[in-house]
């Protein structure tokens, strides 16, 4: 009888598969890695070989340069690859462009490493696909019952109401460079905002990559050229760190907006001086996490990072064996 931990087990470098001799999303350079998605705490440079979706490989090359790994293998969604008798299939995780769950099968045992995921519609990537499995490995970034992300269209509507209410001010939306920024732009377009959106320089390359991959972002312009007054009534997208930066002083009386799941907690918004928090997240909230576990009903739930204790308790109360892996290296608060 094979035990799940014979197929995948936590090591200091990350989650390791002994029979296939590879790691999933390792935090340190290793010989062979499967990478679920392009966020920097999951996709690091310097591995010997990397297996990932074509989109994720593209993102890694954009971020780290072409030589980010000695050898790469593209695995499109749903096409199994093999590693020393272990089958690895990448299926959509709904998190960001190219994000995948790694479905690992060996001798009749199936483990799903879901990476980061969400269950809501995202106009920039295909939706999460539930896969029946013996062990489901989940993150728990927002694994507390206080995280209940609202409808993202209503959050965008609030942003646009504020833009109409303060036509003399500019609105700077802090959004992570990979995924969040492009999703916000797409949501703005869907809400009918067809004016030029101004972009911080740090977002340009990933925006271009998304466009090459078929995500239409509409008219964009760098947020550098115009005079201060020209930004009245403008929507500007920037990395979150730029909100409190002197960079933001070029805009007229800016309204600081920050698009993140953390913005659900008022003290967090206040702490960062955010005037208009937009609760838009690329991670599953509490309801999505528990609904996913309930839907998949795995034999066991393993939890990688975030608020492990609360999700583990919920699972136990619902008759599912749960275990916290205590993996290091993942950013609880990073690129949400």
């Amino acid at each position, binding site marked *: 009888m094979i035990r799940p931990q014979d197929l995948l087990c936590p090591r200091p470098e990350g989650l390791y598969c002994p029979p296939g001799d590879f790691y999933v999303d390792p935090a340190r350079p290793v010989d062979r890695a499967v990478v679920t998605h392009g966020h920097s705490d999951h996709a690091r440079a310097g591995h010997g070989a990397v297996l990932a979706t074509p989109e994720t490989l593209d993102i890694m090359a954009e971020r780290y340069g072409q030589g980010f790994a000695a050898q790469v293998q593209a695995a499109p969604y749903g096409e199994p690859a093999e590693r020393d008798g272990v089958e690895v299939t990448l299926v959509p995780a709904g998190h960001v462009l190219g994000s995948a769950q790694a479905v690992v099968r060996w001798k009749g045992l199936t483990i799903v490493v879901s990476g980061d995921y969400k269950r809501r519609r995202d106009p920039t990537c295909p939706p999460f696909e539930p896969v029946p499995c013996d062990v489901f490995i989940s993150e728990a970034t927002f694994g*507390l*019952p*206080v*995280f*209940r992300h*609202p409808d993202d269209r*209503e959050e965008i509507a*609030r942003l646009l*109401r*504020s833009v109409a*209410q*303060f036509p003399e001010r500019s609105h700077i939306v802090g959004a992570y460079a990979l995924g969040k920024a492009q999703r916000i732009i797409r949501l703005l377009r869907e809400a009918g905002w067809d004016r030029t959106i101004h972009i911080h320089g740090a977002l340009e390359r990933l925006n271009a990559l998304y466009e090459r991959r078929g995500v239409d972002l509409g008219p964009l312009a760098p947020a550098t050229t115009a005079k201060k007054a020209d930004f009245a009534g403008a929507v500007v997208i920037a990395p979150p760190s730029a909100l409190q930066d002197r960079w933001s002083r070029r805009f007229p*009386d800016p309204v600081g907006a920050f698009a993140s799941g953390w913005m*659900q*907690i*008022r*003290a*967090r*918004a*206040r*702490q960062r001086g*955010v*005037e*208009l*928090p937009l609760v838009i997240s690329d991670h599953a909230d509490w309801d999505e996490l528990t609904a996913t576990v309930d839907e998949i009903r795995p034999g066991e739930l393993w939890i990688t990072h975030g*608020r492990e*204790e*609360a999700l583990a*308790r*919920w699972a136990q*109360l619902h008759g599912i064996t749960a275990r916290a892996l205590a993996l290091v290296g993942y950013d609880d608060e990073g690129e949400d």
Partner: protein
Amino acid sequence: MRAFAELLDRLSLTASRNAKLTLVRDYLRATPDPDRGWALAALTGELTFDAAKPAFIRKAVEARMDGQLFAWSYDYVGDLAETVSLVWPARPGANREPALNEVIEALRTASRAEVQRLIEGWLDALPTPRERWALLKLMTGALRVGMTARLAKRAAAEMGGVEAAEVEELWHALHPPYEDLFAWLEGRSERPSADNPARFRPVMLAQALDEAVDFARLDPSDYTAEWKWDGIRVQLAHEGGQRRLYTRTGDDISRAFPDVLEALADEGVVDGELLVVRDGALAPFADLQQRLNRKTVDAKMLETFPAAIRAYDLLHEGDEDLRPLPFAERRRRLEAFLARQPGARLDISPLQPFGTWAELAALRADPPEGDARLAEGVMLKRRDSPYEAGRPKGPWFKWKRDPFTVDAVLMYAQRGHGKRSSFYSDYTFGVWTRDDAGQRALTPVGKAYFGFTDEELKGIDKFVRDNTVERFGPVRSVRAEPHRGLVFEVAFEGLQRSARHKSGVAMRFPRISRIRWDKPPGEADDLEALERLLAQIERR
């Protein structure tokens, strides 16, 4: 409810006064009666509901979800209303969302048992945490969205293009949901009448003095000084045969103070401080507290805690409005007016002559024997200042007495809540005494959790982690030895004897005023220093 919730949410995170005005003004414009009137009443603090208590909300939520998950959630968020609004496990089947008007009407009339059922139903029906949060804020009466009543009234004035003072003046003749006010502001009707006799006049307040900046730019000859008495600021009105006593926010407290109500024989409106005065001498604030705690009063109370008013200003004499006059002129009128009122329940707050700021500083630091020893500090008023509602910048200053300070040693640190939940931010500190064996040892004298910057908090947190001796749940004891440990300069407003504290003393409003990284704990203060201070305070 959605628009009101969005308004509260935005206000709570908006710092700029102008932006707040825009938010409220636009809301009042876009929202129909009576919802906007109720919202204005909530923002100006006019709404209180007896029937709804926050404790039951906690019970209601714990009946619906796992207690441990709720405890972790509450610990993470740090605010009960916010936690409940986020975690609320809604039961399906709720019908439509309640309107603001509906919620308020029900809260005003329903019994406690009914209210609890209603609130659970509303929480089920409201679709987002933001709306549930607004409901809970409204229900518990503490909006705390950084909005003063004055600013809310100004927004209403802006909406109608009238002066803020006009709305202020009318305010106490108006009642929520203010349909007559909005009809006037929208030009649909005449200005509502504010001519009811003995009505409240909005109060003029002082700014805190900034010694570092203000003395350099202010000319002492432009100002008068008087003591800032430690009672409560009141307004006594006698007009058209009616007598009323108001707090500075306009609450009518006439019934609790029949003794001072009769003090005005002539008609007029006096601004002053309500105090307890026994045999011609001022009693401590605690005595006044005895009277303030009751809605009505009996003969025994009147005798044991006799109240009086010490007058600062005269706003009306007969039917003449004195408020546009300069302070010096009003003061002359006040002196003449009071000279004609018989009885011991009303006297004047004497001016304190001074030539230079240094002379005034000396007076404030060492008040003469008598009532002045109980004063909170001094008040400065520009001789030419008219009486303006609110807290105008420049004409009046309050210059409070310096707080007491003591150097104490950090003994225990506890994890904070909310945004501080990852830091050790609540500190218990102690001073030196002798233990039973005659050894020098620390005894705790107080707790403080503010007075430091975020940067300093990180430094203290690191010190706590690096110097932990023992852990008990969320509390750590830290090294506190003569040559190893951390000294705080602790500031506090007062000191009293306490049987609950092992040290025998308790501080009023302690806070960390400085972190003495440089000072060895052995050089911190002794309990004796506090005992001397206590004796000094009690002698006052």
